[in-house]
């Protein structure tokens, strides 16, 4: 199905609806994906993205249906391989605005290797990891991010595996951008997506997504109104790392445990101990991503790093060389019609 409605001299500002397709969205009612789709569409509208130059790429899973619902180019591929296919697109056409939509199984289990290499190569695209800590489309099996002891159809005795930690994985793979945001934080999600999109390199965003059917409320302790202020540490570059209902709590570095710890300035510590967020500080990022209480959110890490496509194109010769001369390379000899002396026939 071809779409081109946006191209008829649109003068009014774009809205999220301009990036919706006429395909019926088929996620379960109440799925966190709806909020993500809305935020992505709004982000594209706010950025005035050119839909003809934008591609959504996905692997397999609930999240992977995403491309069908965004009115851009879209390629729904095979399980775990979206990163590889997206890399090929960027190599072929670096100007394309590529977004990958993927789940925790797709990204961190079957596609873990590709995600690792995408991040270390710093391909210039946005990567959305929908982390709901469960396999949804295959009906509720444990995923690589499921918590120890989680009972699922595939782990009736409780999951024994140590979960993969998306943030540590990303930073360990050399990610130049890591952000984390819950699906329900709509405004913040749009801001984070814009930041990821504006980043030169892989803008890797872990979205805490709720699977209402197989792992409902897994993020509720962090996202519920009652606990959000105490459990959410929003990281903003250049601002103190504070949280709590009155922003009375803050983070400091404990030189004895070599860890971050929460405290209340003026009560159990001094104001000048409060850490100020620095997105470019990789050490701070590693400490922040591992925090659980509170959970660090927002753009946790961002630094300038060489981008794959740019480095490759920079290294290329400018001018196309002559193909015939290439074929003519090596030791060339000519066989003429009357070449050298005749051969004596010898019986064999």
């Amino acid at each position, binding site marked *: 199905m071809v779409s081109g409605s946006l191209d008829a001299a649109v003068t009014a500002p774009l809205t999220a609806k301009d990036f919706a397709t006429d395909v019926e969205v088929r996620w379960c009612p109440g799925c966190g994906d709806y909020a993500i789709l809305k935020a992505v569409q709004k982000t594209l509208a706010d950025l005035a993205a050119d839909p*003809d130059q934008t591609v959504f790429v996905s692997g397999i899973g609930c999240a992977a249906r995403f491309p069908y619902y965004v009115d851009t180019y879209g*390629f729904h*591929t095979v399980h775990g391989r979206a990163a590889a*296919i997206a890399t090929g697109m960027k190599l*072929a056409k670096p100007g394309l605005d590529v977004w990958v939509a993927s789940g925790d199984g797709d990204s961190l289990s079957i596609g873990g290797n590709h995600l690792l290499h995408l991040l270390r190569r710093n391909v210039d695209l946005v990567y959305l990891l929908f982390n709901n800590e469960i396999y949804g489309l295959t009906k509720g099996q444990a995923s690589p991010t499921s918590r120890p002891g989680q009972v699922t159809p595939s782990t009736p005795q409780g999951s024994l595996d140590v979960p993969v930690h998306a943030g540590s994985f990303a930073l360990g793979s050399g990610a130049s951008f890591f952000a984390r945001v819950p699906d329900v934080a709509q405004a913040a999600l749009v801001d984070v997506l814009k930041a990821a999109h504006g980043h030169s390199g892989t803008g890797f965003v872990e979205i805490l997504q709720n699977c209402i059917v197989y792992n409902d409320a897994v993020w509720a302790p962090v996202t519920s109104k009652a606990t959000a202020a105490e459990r959410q540490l929003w990281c903003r570059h250049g601002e103190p790392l504070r949280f709590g209902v009155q922003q009375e709590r803050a983070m400091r570095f404990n030189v004895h445990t070599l860890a971050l710890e929460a405290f209340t300035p003026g009560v159990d510590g001094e104001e000048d101990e409060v850490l100020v967020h620095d997105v470019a500080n990789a050490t701070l990022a590693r400490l922040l991503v591992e925090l659980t209480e509170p959970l660090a959110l927002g753009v946790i890490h961002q630094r300038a790093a060489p981008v794959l496509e740019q480095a490759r194109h920079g290294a290329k010769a400018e001018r196309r060389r002559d193909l015939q001369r290439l074929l003519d390379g090596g030791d060339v000899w000519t066989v003429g019609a009357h070449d*050298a002396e005749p051969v004596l*026939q010898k019986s064999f």
Partner: protein
Amino acid sequence: MDEMRATDSLLVVRFAGDSGDGIQLTGSRYTAEAAGAGADLRTFPDFPAEIRAPAGTTYGVSAFQIQLGHRRVRTAGDQVDVLVALNPAALKVNLPEVRTGGVLVVDEATFGERGLAKAGYAANPLTDGSLDGYRLIALDVTKLTAEAVRPAGVKARDAGRARNLWTLGLALWLTGGDMAKSEAWIAQHFEGRPSIAEANMRALRAGHAFGETAELARVEPVLLRAHSPLPPGRYRSIAGSDALCLGLVTAAHLADLELVYGSYPITPASSMLHTLAKLEAYGVDVFQAEDEIAAIGVALGASYAGKLGVTGSSGPGMALKTEMLGLALAAELPLVVIDAQRGGPSTGLPTKTEQSDLLQAVLGRNADAPLPVLAAATPGDAFDTAIEAVRLALRAMTPVILLTDGYLANASEPWAIPDVASLAPIERPAIGGRQPYDHDPATLARPWIPAGTPRMRHRIGGLERQDGSGAVSYDPSNHHRMSELRHGKIERLADAIPAQDFVAGDMDDDLLVIGWGSTLGALTTAVEELRQQGHRVAQIHLRHLAPFPSNLGGLLERFERVLVCELNMGQLALVLQGRYGRPVASLTKVAGRPFQVSEVQARVRRELGVTW
């Protein structure tokens, strides 16, 4: 040189030694001299899987074989006429293939107690009479080389490494050649390292001079410059993998496309990765991926975005690419996948040759997933087959598998350099306002609408697509229709490929020999000689393995007896029998090595029921 007269005899020379002895280099230099003398030739390098196997062991032996002469040469030869063996292990491994009365050049310095023990010799073959049936030239090559290079003032280690060039010089002399090309190569290759260059030059010349001053009887002056058996033209010596890479680059040029080659290192396909990596100035983007799956994924992503995606691998890697091939086929995107086959199953014989991925290529995917399969027949033919593969991929918007093998990848032959300007351009399906899955009634191909094309954006994927729009469809009748479309699209390519013709003979012969891929040389030589002896044997050789040429069925019907020859357990025979419902006989060989002419002839005689 007055006593030498050029003849039309063919000669088979094999250089053998440790994998670190520079054997492949010696062979390629000898090849260059042969080509320069106007000889036709075929070469076959044979090296171990280990990079540096323990020195002196039989499993570390590397060899390079060349058949050459001033008439047409189609194989690297069955039996060796001249064996140059740099150590006892090289002699032991290669002696069984030397003809009785053949020449053995050995470095006797290596035949000490240690060297003999490492090779597993209980007694010294140079002195125990076991080589009485051969013409043995046992020389202290180590000492002769050391003496020759001493004036260059190089270290003993570098002097020892020049033994290969000393034996090259001797081999050139024995077969009537000069050293002009080798000298030029040394000067160029060791530019900036004058003492190493001088040492190698001295070793080469000393080997040549030794033959002359010791008045060794010449073997066969095949290197004497003489009238070439090749048709007039400009030639270069080319290995299969290089020809294939040049074919890909040329095809991209003919299609006015750039090419993205995604690959993961695997023997024997890595040489393509290395060759293409040097060709970025010709519109090639080479990407070493993290694994085989990513390699094809990157290629497919490139095709989606409008460049021509190509990936190359060998059997085990092909197995990993299978799922993505299905996606390429479902998405109806052009893609070229090269499988340089090797011995299997599993890791198998990585450096040896085999044709056992045919069924994997033709049938090895989940569901009904047809795609075109081609095979290159000779090193030079890999150039044309690569262009043909690209042509079919673009014509039908489909992934195409091109089969080569370990022999073809490494073997070389004289190649008539094509004139790019004379090659036909390659067409691709036009967009022309069509829907993404609007299938052309003639070719059944959909248009290629690369991401980024204005006002044509669409969403596709591995879920079944609606014929026409490409939107997701679970409709049963649409799935049936799409399956027929995918099948019919490949079948219709039979109309776009040349009719099958005979390599030798015609419809009236008694027996039809069928081959495919790199066995062409051996089969042609075998059939040619049998026909000269009066046997009524015809021969065809398939480039197109899926779909088959449209006249193949009718052609098979004309023969009561058909013999399918292939380096596997009978895969083409199975496909032909399934497709055409007729029995065929099968000659199979799975030894990691090409057919020998003699074994093909023996089997044909058996089929014909004759003893002559």
